[in-house]
């Protein structure tokens, strides 16, 4: 709430100061190949085009290829949702040398990986505040194979997160606390196990990540681990490795996935300052992003359809990102 009030005031202040738009020119925008990123790219496109007079060209891309191209060639100009853990070092260098800039850190709330439960589990059991509390209650999540044990759905075989989940399972001594780790085998298996449990109102506890459609559709809640992040030595040097290379994993919250809206130096210097200002304010609340992903899934909407839906149905969210003047122009264009 505080954030909304603050950004409303900020938006009002910008409006009052009165702005003259510099010509924006043509820019290129990375349209990444997963739903939340293509939605964000299309929202950015409409706002930059209609609100700030830019000409935006969409460039299809994936994480590593887009980053490599931005770093080496300075094209595309904007990557709305770039997951940077895998390229942290190279990005740091590019930012130090002034080739790339982060226009917004964490453009979506509640993003990242972790352990989730459906919201009704928390409503029915208000004493479950953290993962530590859940671990004391395996009886709430009975395993089919052995109902005296709790069932924790891990990450599909062969994914990087499989190792992290196995090691955290060990670190939290979950076996001793009466849990079994179930390998869902594939993303399809993981999704279906969650869908099945929630459709029937059963409890479910397992690994997932956000922003994703199931998280929005089933109102999944990311649990706080109840322990701090135990350092990157523990994570990168043990938890993220194979079981036999990790003798003594320590309980830890999940490593933070860094996501940035990255822009090139060209964009930062040539685009109007208001556009940078827009990016700096643009944070999608987790539930709103979840709703949008459900909308995209249900209607098989592509990014541009979904962007228009977002601009129409979530005016209260995006109008706080821009000045009233720009908001009016964007609204007029819909």
């Amino acid at each position: 709430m505080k954030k909304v009030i603050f950004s409303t005031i900020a938006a009002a202040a910008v409006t009052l100061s009165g702005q003259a738009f510099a010509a924006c020119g043509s820019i290129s925008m990375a349209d990444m190949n997963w739903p939340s990123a293509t939605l964000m790219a299309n929202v950015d496109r409409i706002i930059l085009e209609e609100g700030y007079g830019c000409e935006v060209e969409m460039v299809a891309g994936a994480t590593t290829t887009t980053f490599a191209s931005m770093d080496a060639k300075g094209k595309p100009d904007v990557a709305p949702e770039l997951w940077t853990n895998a390229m942290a070092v190279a990005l740091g260098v590019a930012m130090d040398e002034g080739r790339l800039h982060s226009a917004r850190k964490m453009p979506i709330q509640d993003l990242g990986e972790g352990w989730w439960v459906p919201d009704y589990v928390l409503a029915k059991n208000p004493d479950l505040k953290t993962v530590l509390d859940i671990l004391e209650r395996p009886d709430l999540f009975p395993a089919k194979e052995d109902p005296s044990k709790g069932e924790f759905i891990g990450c599909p075989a062969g994914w990087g997160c499989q190792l992290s989940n196995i090691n955290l399972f060990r670190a939290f001594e979950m076996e001793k606390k009466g849990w079994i780790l179930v390998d869902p085998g594939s993303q399809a298996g993981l999704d279906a196990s969650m869908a099945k449990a929630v459709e029937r109102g059963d409890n479910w506890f397992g690994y997932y990540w956000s922003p994703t459609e199931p998280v929005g559709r089933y109102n999944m809640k990311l649990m706080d681990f109840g322990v701090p992040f135990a350092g990157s030595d523990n994570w990168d040097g043990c938890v993220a490795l194979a079981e036999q290379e990790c003798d003594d994993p320590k309980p830890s919250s999940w490593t933070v996935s860094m996501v940035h809206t990255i822009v090139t130096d060209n964009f930062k210097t040539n685009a109007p300052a208001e556009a940078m200002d827009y990016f700096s304010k643009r944070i999608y609340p987790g539930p709103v992003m979840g709703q949008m992903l459900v909308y995209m899934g249900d209607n098989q909407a592509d990014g541009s359809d979904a962007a228009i839906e977002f601009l129409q149905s979530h005016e209260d969210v995006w109008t706080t990102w821009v000045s009233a003047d720009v908001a009016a122009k964007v609204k007029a264009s819909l």
Partner: protein
Amino acid sequence: MSFWTDIPSLSRADLRDLKKGIDASFREFSKNYGEGIEAFFDPLYFFLVKLEKLLIAAPWPIILILVGGLAYLGSRSWKLALGSMLAFVVIGYFGMWKDMMATISLISVATIMCIAVGIPIGILMSRYNRVQSAITPILDLMQTIPIFVYLLPVVMLLGIGRVPGLIAVCVYAVPPVIRLTNLGIRLVDKETLEAADAFGSNYRQKLFSVQLPLALPNIFAGVNQTIMMALAMVVIASMIGVKGLGMPVLQSIQNQYLTLGLMNGLAIVALAIIFDRVSQKYGQRLQAHRYGADHE
């Protein structure tokens, strides 16, 4: 002239509503009946869990003796029996014993189920042409439909794990035994059947004393193919959380662990060869009288 260039199609909105409607009704169905259907399969599930736990808990020498014994009983060949035992020892030596036991429990139950369902259906198909023409397209569908198309609905109904895995395996593996039972019975000589009729045998006598024995080579070829196809499904079954040799294969595919993949893949192959040779030899022995050999 867009008629000639664009095929008439549902509008995007109608198509979307159609898909949404079917999805929603399936979800509704799963919500209302899923628990009941799951409960129906519970005995099977607990049998699978028990069998797997039993196989894992049993001392390994006993399993080895059992394997050797069964292989010898089936094939009457010392070479094959010793070879099977050796293969099991090697697989265990490379740390795949538990996974192998899980796979064997799934495959044996799947095979038994396929035979129990498949042979009666095959007999029905051979008796009534209508049944044959109704079931043949279903078998075609079962053998060719991409597995994930039905795997996901099954998982939505039954959850991840052994039972949906078993169903997936059987859907894919049961057609050969049905087809070959049907074919085998239909290929039985007309004259032989006339002779049976002339002796006044009823349908049951004809079936059990004439048709089935004479169709055995084909039926056995079907059973053999069913076992092979069930083993081929081990990795796919792992994709919905079935434990066993398939799980490490999946893991190695994703991570380029070449050796892990190869070892587990070869273990599946070894199991397949053992099952194949033993069942083939058994089928041949049943037929030994045909070749004029002096036998039992």
